[in-house]
């Protein structure tokens, strides 16, 4: 499937009408505010009006995220990380949606939301702990309202729903966003999250990055109709947005969050994008997909698109781009240094945190392990 300009299309009238209205080209409708060529187009349901500074901010977010991501990939190649799951190509989906969030909103990511983490203010090097193998989640979810990465596909959508139920019980007007992938849409947990959120009218946005691959499986192995349509049968709206268009992602997510805040319940956003790289550094996509597909998507690059727009409109000059490039190099270096300096955990750490209130068996095993360790020290003496 390709993403085309919707400039000439008749717009959808309301975010609640999410039927599979087809365009001339047979494509289900896609919300787009910035064409691949960087032209600004209007959409009657999703207006957005950003200052040049805000636009530059989005560019910077995307560029730094991409730089960070590339650094992590190369750190993996250098053996500093055991694995890396690159977000290459998904910067707009992540930055656009995350920049729609307020501080008091809460985020439940998968394992690929490095751009969202960035927007939440999580120190990028903290993201690398689990990929380096020094921890299973290296940040305090509460300090940035950004939950830990979740590896078991789909589970976090239920946590998000429960959290949103709690927000509603508190009478707060915050919203919650759950990220997941096209593959995850098949998991029973995601369907249950749809059911619970609809029944309790929970203030949650389900943000599906359909990057068209679940490791080696194309989206057709998960569904025979566009994923955004899934929502309707659960009684809430679904909308498909150009996932490589940061403005559209921002506008659509903002509107979904507003619905949540104003008591209208959940929304499913399907960001139609593409996984430009391998699934993870362990994966070899040449085994299952044609490189032409990836090449075709290069023309829709989210960053190039915004840059073209910024340049065309004169919203940013060379100095700005140079500055961001410089900043990105500094970020790369900072992350590299931080990772290399990351100490291996103390073996005794295995016995910490399994329980909050302690557990006799853990105490026993900790003591045995300590004695066992000490026996080597003795031998060495």
């Amino acid at each position: 499937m390709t993403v085309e300009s919707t400039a000439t299309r008749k717009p959808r009238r309301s975010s609640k009408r999410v039927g599979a209205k087809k365009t001339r080209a047979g494509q289900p409708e896609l919300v787009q505010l910035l064409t691949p060529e960087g032209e600004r187009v209007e959409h009657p349901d999703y207006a957005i009006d950003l200052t040049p500074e805000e636009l530059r901010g989005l560019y910077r977010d995307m560029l730094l995220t991409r730089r960070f991501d590339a650094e992590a990939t190369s750190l993996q190649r250098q053996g500093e990380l055991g694995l890396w799951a690159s977000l290459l190509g998904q910067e707009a989906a992540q930055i656009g949606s995350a920049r729609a969030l307020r501080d008091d909103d809460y985020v439940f990511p998968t394992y690929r939301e490095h751009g969202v983490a960035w927007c939440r203010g999580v120190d990028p090097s903290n993201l690398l702990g689990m990929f380096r193998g020094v921890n299973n989640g290296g940040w305090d979810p509460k300090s940035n309202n950004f939950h830990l990465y979740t590896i078991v596909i789909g589970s976090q959508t239920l946590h998000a729903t429960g959290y949103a139920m709690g927000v509603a019980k508190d009478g707060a007007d915050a919203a919650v966003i759950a990220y997941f992938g096209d593959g995850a849409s098949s998991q029973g947990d995601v369907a249950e999250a749809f059911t619970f959120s609809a029944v309790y009218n929970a203030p949650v946005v389900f943000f599906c990055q359909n990057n068209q691959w679940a490791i080696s499986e194309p989206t057709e192995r998960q569904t025979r109709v566009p994923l955004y349509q899934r929502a309707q049968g659960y009684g809430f709206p679904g909308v498909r947005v150009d996932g490589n268009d940061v403005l559209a992602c921002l506008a659509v997510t903002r509107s979904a969050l507003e619905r949540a805040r104003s008591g209208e319940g959940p929304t499913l956003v399907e960001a139609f994008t593409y996984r430009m790289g391998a699934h993870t550094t362990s994966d070899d996509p040449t085994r299952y997909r044609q490189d032409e597909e990836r090449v075709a998507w290069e023309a829709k690059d989210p960053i190039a698109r915004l840059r073209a727009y910024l340049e065309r409109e004169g919203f940013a000059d060379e100095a700005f781009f140079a500055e961001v490039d410089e900043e990105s190099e500094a970020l790369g270096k900072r992350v590299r240094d931080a990772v290399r300096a990351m100490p291996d955990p103390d073996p005794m750490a295995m016995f910490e945190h399994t329980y909050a209130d302690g557990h006799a068996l853990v105490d026993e095993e900790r003591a045995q392990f300590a004695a066992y360790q000490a026996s080597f020290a003795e031998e060495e003496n």
Partner: protein
Amino acid sequence: MAVEKLPIAKAINEALRSAMETDSKVLVMGEDVGKLGGVFRVTDGLQKDFGEDRVIDSPLAESGIIGTAIGLALRGYRPIAEIQFDGFVFPAYDQIVTQLAKMHARALGKVKLPVVIRIPYGGGIGAVEHHSESPEALFAHVAGLKCVSPSNASDAYWMMRQAIDSDDPVIFFEPKRRYWDKGEVDTAAIPGGLHEARVVQEGSQLTLAAYGPMVKVCVEAAAAAAEEGKSIEVLDLRSMSPIDFDTIQGSVEKTRRLVVVHEAPVFLGTGAEIAARITERCFYHLEAPVLRVGGYHAPYPPARLEEEYLPGLDRVLDAVDRALAY
């Protein structure tokens, strides 16, 4: 109320009620827990008094119940989730094992998961398939969970209060066939620790260790054995994770013989761990191998066979005799 005679189901109900009164963050959720008050009436009256916002009838989806309970806990609530019957906990197993159990460790202690999962468990009520199982070993094996089971009304009340107070996930196994057994509950008494075993009855020749529904059977077995002049000590383990091995060890060092009784299948049941560990701790004290009485390696049988499947007085006494014969 200070001291009152209550059936176990009602004692749990009182514990829920009093926790809900004390802490507005305590929630009850599950299938049919609202108007119906649960199929065993354990949550009877709670929705009427605390409202639909705190006593939540959930969609029919156990993974959803536990998954949203986790989310609620992350938001600062203390959810008590009911699984309607033992055999229906498995759709939630993934959320329990990969998320609930591991999230505190994953977050290096930065988030707490004070979730209680109530599971009416065990057989003896003549029910159809999936309504009589004892899956506790499948949870006790998993680090990050605590598993307990009361055997009497007082423990039912207090252990539930303590489970709700715990910042760790607790799987609370309710001995459903004992729901109607009455006992004194003193809501003012200071309870023992949630994970401490209790010597129900002292004896010198053999220790019977059990928890939940089997404690009663063991007490009866001890009485029957006493008539034959055998002195049996009975332990109510109360907690299957952690297991209070110190108390068992203390008892076995005295009696030198141990029989563990549970409804769950013997193979890889909690008795296996107790036998292994107590043998290690008491190798030179034991006069006989630790014997186990429990269910067989078969699906829980249809109701008309359950008396044969479940450990009863005769099977426990048979094991006692075998152990004493060493």
